[in-house]
C-alpha cells in the first residue's frame, strides 16, 4: 500500500483557559479539568478560518514532501466549518499551494471524521495508480454555543498529509471503516451552533464506533495493542481517548505523544490527524502507529502505519506540531474571545 510522503500541522497562537470560560458561566472549572482533562483550547484569530489554516498546514506538508505541487492530483479538505456554504475550500487551498489547475478537488463533511475521510480517499487514489500525489486535509474552527459543555473544547487547527507511492515516510499497512446512523451530534443548515444528545454522545456513539473500528482493524492485521509504539484516537476531550484506548489494551505511554486535546482542545476534523502529526514528528524508522478517528453521525476510520527510514530526514523541515502548541501563546479573556469568535451580535 501507499503512504504519507509529507505531513504538516497548523494551530493558531491564541488560547483561552478553561477557568476563564467557567468564570463567565458560573461553572465548576475543576470538574472540566479533572473530569474531561481539559486545560485550555486554541482560538483562531479573526483573520483565520479553515482555508487559511489548511494552506499553512499544507505548506508544512510540502516542505517535508519536497515535491513539485503541480504533481499533486487531488486536494480534499475535510471540515464541518468550511467558510462558505457554497464555494469550495479546496480550490482556494489548491490555488494557494500551486497545485491548480490539473487537480480533482472536493470538500468533505462528516463531523469530526472529515479529515480521516480525505486521507482514506487520497490513499485509495494512490493505491489505484490514478495519480502521483494526493493531498488530504482535516481542519476546523469549531464553535460551541456559549455556556454549552462544547464551548470548553471546541478549538481550531489543521493537519495535512500528502500521500504517494515513492519515498514514503509512513506506509499504510491496513485501513478499516465502521459506520452506523447515530444521532449524537448535528447542526442543521442556517443554524449557528451545533446540538448534541448529551450523555448519548458517549457509549452508543464515540465508544461503540471507536471500539468497533479498532477491534476489526486489529483483527484484520493480526496485531495486538502491545505491537504498537503509538496510538492516536479522536479527542473530543482528554478523557474519552484514554478511556477507550485503555479498554482496548493500549497504555498511556502509547497514547500520550498523540494526545493534544488537553492543551489544544478538540480541533474536530483536525483532531486525530493533528495527533498523528505530533507522533510523526518523533517517530523512528520501523515503528508502528495506530490511528482511529471518530465523527458523529457516526463512524470511525482506522489506519495502521509503519514508519520508514525516510522519516528522520523530513521531521525538521517544517515547524513541529508541539512548536505550535508550546511557543508564543497569547491568552485571551472571555470578552476578546467572544469578539474574535463573533459570539457578540453587533447593532446595524
Amino acid at each position, binding site marked *: 500500500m501507499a503512504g504519507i510522503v509529507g505531513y504538516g500541522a497548523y494551530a493558531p*497562537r491564541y488560547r483561552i483557559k478553561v477557568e476563564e470560560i467557567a468564570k463567565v458561566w458560573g461553572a465548576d472549572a475543576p470538574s472540566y479539568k479533572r473530569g474531561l482533562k481539559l486545560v485550555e483550547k486554541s482560538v483562531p*484569530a*479573526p*483573520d*483565520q*478560518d479553515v*482555508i*487559511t489554516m489548511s*494552506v*499553512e498546514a499544507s*505548506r508544512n506538508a510540502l516542505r517535508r514532501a519536497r515535491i513539485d505541487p503541480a504533481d499533486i492530483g487531488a486536494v480534499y479538505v475535510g471540515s464541518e466549518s468550511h*467558510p*462558505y456554504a457554497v464555494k469550495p475550500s479546496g480550490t*482556494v487551498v489548491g*490555488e*494557494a499551494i*500551486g497545485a491548480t489547475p490539473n487537480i480533482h478537488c472536493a470538500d468533505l463533511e462528516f463531523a469530526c471524521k472529515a479529515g480521516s475521510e480525505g486521507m482514506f480517499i487520497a490513499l485509495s487514489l494512490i493505491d489505484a495508480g490514478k495519480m502521483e500525489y494526493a493531498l488530504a486535509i482535516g481542519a476546523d474552527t469549531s464553535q460551541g454555543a456559549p455556556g454549552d459543555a462544547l464551548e470548553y473544547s471546541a478549538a481550531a487547527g489543521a493537519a495535512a498529509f500528502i500521500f504517494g507511492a515513492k519515498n514514503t515516510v509512513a506506509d499504510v499497512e491496513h485501513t478499516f471503516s465502521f459506520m452506523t446512523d447515530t444521532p449524537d451530534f448535528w447542526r442543521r443548515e442556517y443554524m449557528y451552533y451545533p446540538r448534541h444528545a448529551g450523555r448519548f454522545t458517549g457509549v452508543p456513539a464515540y465508544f461503540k464506533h471507536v471500539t468497533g473500528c479498532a477491534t476489526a482493524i486489529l483483527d484484520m492485521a493480526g496485531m495486538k495493542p502491545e505491537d504498537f509504539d503509538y496510538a492516536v484516537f479522536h479527542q473530543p476531550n482528554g478523557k474519552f481517548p484514554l478511556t477507550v484506548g485503555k479498554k482496548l489494551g493500549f497504555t498511556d505511554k502509547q497514547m500520550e505523544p498523540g494526545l493534544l486535546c488537553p492543551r489544544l482542545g478538540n480541533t474536530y476534523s483536525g483532531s486525530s490527524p493533528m495527533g498523528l502529526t505530533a507522533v510523526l514528528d518523533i517517530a523512528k524508522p520501523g515503528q508502528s502507529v495506530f490511528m482511529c478517528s471518530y465523527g458523529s453521525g457516526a463512524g470511525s476510520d482506522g489506519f495502521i502505519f509503519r514508519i520508514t527510514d525516510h522519516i528522520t530526514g523530513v521531521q525538521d523541515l517544517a*515547524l513541529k506540531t508541539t*512548536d*505550535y502548541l508550546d*511557543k*508564543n501563546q*497569547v491568552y485571551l479573556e472571555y470578552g476578546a474571545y467572544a*469578539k474574535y469568535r463573533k459570539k457578540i451580535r453587533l447593532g446595524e
Partner: protein
Amino acid sequence: MSTSARYWREIPQRYRYEASKCKGCGAVWFPPRLICSACGKKEFEDVVLPGTGKVKTFTVIRVAPSEFSDEAPYAIGIVDLDGGPAIQCQIADCAPEDLKTGMAVKIEFRKVKQEGEAGIINYGFKAVPVL
C-alpha cells in the same frame, strides 16, 4: 469593475507571492512589472517571494475603514524580506504595543477582508511574528 474581479486577477500575488525578477539587473518587483524601473529592460523571470523578513517600519490604524473596523487597532507595515524586496502588508497576531522595528516576521495566509457578510472573502498574505 467589481472588487471580486480585481481580487481574482491578483490571485498569483495574493496567494502565491509571485514576483518578477529582471533578467538585466536582477531587481525583484512585487507586484510584477512590464518594464524594470531600475534598468529599463523588459525581460523577467518568475520568482516567489521569500517567506521571512524583518519589520522595517509600521503604523497603527485606530480608526479603520468600515470593512476593517472589527480588527482595529491593527498595524500596517513595510517588511524587508530576507534576500528579497520590501512589501507592504498588515502585521497580524501582535498587539500594536508589542510591535518593534527590526522584529523577525514570517508571511502567513490570512483573510484580508470580506465583501460584507454575504460577499466574497478575500484571502492574501500578512506578516506575523515568528514562533
